[in-house]
């Protein structure tokens, strides 16, 4: 089978292509958010889209997240398919009520009378010294809520394919990108490229340990896997791509082969996605495990500004590697201390 033709795109180009193609296909799709139009996007994801689609379909909003998220939800209730850009997911917390109380609940509490085809998207997580209020990975906050789907892509091709699915989905989808990955380049297949939500992807195959991760942490995990391979440890990196719905079958399949599980998650450990993955695996495949599952997460603190502290807080390839080595008994566990 020949490989499909592809091009190298940046993450932001891939996301833009998804939005542009879908908007060309379906006139009910509109894009709104802070600086998405005349400024061409705070991070240039929507560059050129105002010129292409005009201001009735690409709307600059005031700084009023609760307001424009709510406007999007209302529009979706009656037939439009809005894409709502948050300048960062940190600002989505201003609209948390709209997403959690309104978007997530609508279909259920109306006995299915309404569908809510809306995408909330933007960058999240830490992005180098942005401080406590601008560095939060919020996927665990949203994945907790029934009625919301949560997607966190790690490479441009996945970004494009998953965003197209998210736009076509009849449910509210929280689509989380990263400021630090917008310039990341990758092969993106030519032509129609749509990836289903809820399907994980093996980014690197391995037999010894399963690393379950997503988004930016896929890259830290792949770096760690490369280093570990030098020591003869073959790590499998399973990119969830979609947090909710969770591809439990892919996780279980991998763990049944490797018998060891490490979850790498940006964001806080307490009641986070990593804990959910461990719950699934221990409930469904407890006998398969040769070691207790381990989480590598942010330290349990608000993000400090100082770079040396921030680097301690966010999972690094080194921390991932150390967790794997410790699990395999290749090194003694670190003495109890911060980190």
């Amino acid at each position, binding site marked *: 089978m020949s490989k499909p033709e592809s091009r190298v795109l940046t993450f932001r180009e891939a996301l833009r292509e998804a939005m542009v193609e879908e908007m060309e296909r379906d006139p009910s799709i509109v894009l709104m958010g802070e*600086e998405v139009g005349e400024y061409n996007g705070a991070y240039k994801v929507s560059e050129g889209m105002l010129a292409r689609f005009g201001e009735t379909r690409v709307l600059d909003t005031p*700084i009023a997240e609760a307001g424009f998220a709510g406007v999007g939800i209302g529009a979706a209730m009656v037939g439009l398919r809005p894409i709502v850009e948050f300048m960062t997911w940190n600002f989505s917390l201003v609209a948390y009520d709209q997403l959690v109380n309104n978007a997530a609940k609508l279909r259920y509490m109306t006995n299915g009378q309404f569908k809510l085809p809306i995408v909330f998207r933007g960058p999240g997580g830490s992005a*180098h010294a942005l*401080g*406590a209020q*601008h560095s939060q990975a919020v996927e665990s906050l949203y994945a907790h809520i029934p009625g919301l789907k949560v997607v966190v892509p790690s490479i441009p091709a996945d970004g494009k394919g998953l965003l197209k699915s998210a736009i076509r989905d009849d449910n509210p989808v929280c689509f989380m990108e990263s400021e630090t990955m917008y310039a990341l380049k990758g092969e993106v297949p030519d032509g129609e490229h749509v990836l289903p939500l809820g399907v994980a992807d093996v980014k690197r195959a391995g037999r010894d340990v399963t690393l379950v991760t997503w988004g930016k942490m896929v890259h830290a995990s792949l770096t760690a896997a490369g280093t570990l391979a030098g020591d003869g440890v073959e790590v499998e990196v399973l990119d969830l791509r979609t947090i909710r719905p969770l591809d439990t079958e892919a996780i279980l399949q991998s763990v049944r082969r490797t018998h060891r599980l490490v979850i790498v998650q940006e964001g806080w450990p307490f009641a986070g996605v990593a804990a959910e993955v461990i719950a699934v695996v221990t409930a469904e495949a407890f006998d398969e495990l040769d070691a207790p599952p381990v989480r590598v997460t942010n330290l349990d603190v*608000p993000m400090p500004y100082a770079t040396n*502290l921030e680097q301690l807080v966010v999972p690094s390839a080194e921390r991932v590697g150390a967790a794997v080595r410790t699990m395999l008994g290749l090194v003694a566990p670190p003495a109890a201390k911060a980190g």
Partner: protein
Amino acid sequence: MDAALVLDLYRQMALCRRFEEAAARAYQQGKIRGFLHLYIGQEAVAVGAISAAAPTDYIVSTYREHAHYLARTGDARAAMAELFGKATGCVGGRGGSMHLFDASQRFLGGWAIVGGHVPIAARVAFASKYRGEPDVTLCFFGDGSANQGAFHEGLALASLWRLPVVFICENNMYAMGTPLYRTLSVQDVSVRAKGYPMESEIVNGDDVLEMREAVRHALDRVRKTNEPFFLEAKTYRFRGHSMSDPAKYRTREEVEEWMQRDPLSILAQRIETLGIATPEQLAQIDTDMKAVVQDAVEFAESSAVPAPDTVLDHVEA
């Protein structure tokens, strides 16, 4: 006119200006990271307003708060060290440019979600009133806040509960990269005050003496009426929204026109006209402030980064 006071206002504005010019250079050298939002062009607002307040009045500000911090504390070393992410910074390198605080001087931030701090200011004022203390809270925010729910809720509560706050809108005509006429349904933000209701006034935010007088009046009214007051300062930021914003949404002519109204030049001209000081004396003040800032930069550079084993400190009391 009190010559010493006027010269002090000039000195403070020059400190803010030189501080931020140095910060911009350090940012370009990678010594300051993250977001850096400069206040250059708006100095008369913070300096004029805070000079009118009592030292016991509370200050609550935004992520564009270097000048408010300097006007309240005068501590260029602690501010610069914070921007450099050093242990000697005013919050130990935890906050950075957007989160300057000094509890001892009643400088209460340093908040980086647009509008989110407006109810906080109302609540600080609530505490003053609850304890029967005379202190007023000065709450600074930009025109971009005026569409946020938290802004409206904060003002609504302040009015309902008659809380001692002076709300100071720094209207620099742009909410990040969007001009006001495309982001606000009214021309003057102060129109919004009428509905809560509260007394309001529009002031030229480029004239530090006008600004000081307006805030003095506002503080008087708050102390007399026990009700909040809304002040809208018309001003302009000479730089982009942040260091990463090239500000292509403004014409060069527009920026140059506003730079004719540089608050430092306006005050310098008045000082010379009134014979308070000569251009040479003002130049000396400027030189002195450059030295203060240079000292702050050296202090920041030579300070240690926060100790790694403190990273878990202060999550809870």
